[in-house]
């Protein structure tokens, strides 16, 4: 699946997007964040406070318990500050 990062999550991870293949036992957004956290220093820094991170699946906001099965694009970002 394709993963996108925005704002300081993007800066900390060090890339705007990538394609990942998490293991089959990673089923929810929360589990995916935990898995990503273990993928390196930048990821650990980006996801150090997982409760702050917002997630969208296929461009729709979702909660941490959302299933990732079938997702084409998952985005992680900080709380929004537009307007």
């Amino acid at each position: 699946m394709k993963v996108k990062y925005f704002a300081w999550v993007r800066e900390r991870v060090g890339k705007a997007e990538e394609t990942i293949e998490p293991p089959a036992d990673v089923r929810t957004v929360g589990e995916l964040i935990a898995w990503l956290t273990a993928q390196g220093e930048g990821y650990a820094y980006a996801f150090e406070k997982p409760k702050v991170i917002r997630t969208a699946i296929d461009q729709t906001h979702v909660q941490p318990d959302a299933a990732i099965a079938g997702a084409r694009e998952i985005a992680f970002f900080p709380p929004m500050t537009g307007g």
Partner: protein
Amino acid sequence: MTAIVTVRVQQQDFDTAAEIAALSHGRTDIGAVVSFSGLCRGNDHDTPISALTLEHYPGMAEAEIMRHAEEAMARWPLQGLTVIHRHGRIRPGENIVLVVTASSHRQAAFEAAEFLMDYLKTNAPFWKREETADGGSWVEAKSHDDAATARWTS
């Protein structure tokens, strides 16, 4: 007459007066037009800001604004609305966002404009980064913005 809903996410500036005029031009069923303009300030509390850079999530930004525009249309008797949100580098005094709502009477237009701005702040995927003398930093989300959004669901 049909309601006109316009949502644009763009880098370039917009003409507030022209957007207001476009929404009500040639119509006699609109009695109230409310517009809100969000501008870039030159300071954040006591820290001078040389510019803001707005990052956005292309595709989702438009979709999320359109979703709330449709909700506003369903919730209030509106004749039309326009939402424009800029991205990229924006200097103090420049436009960031515009919301225009048109209705027969003022209450619906005021409420819908406030609803749209509250949701834009907390749900539209945009992030502001401030440029200051010592570099810059991402603007932190404010809890009073979340509280403002929450009141529309209570």
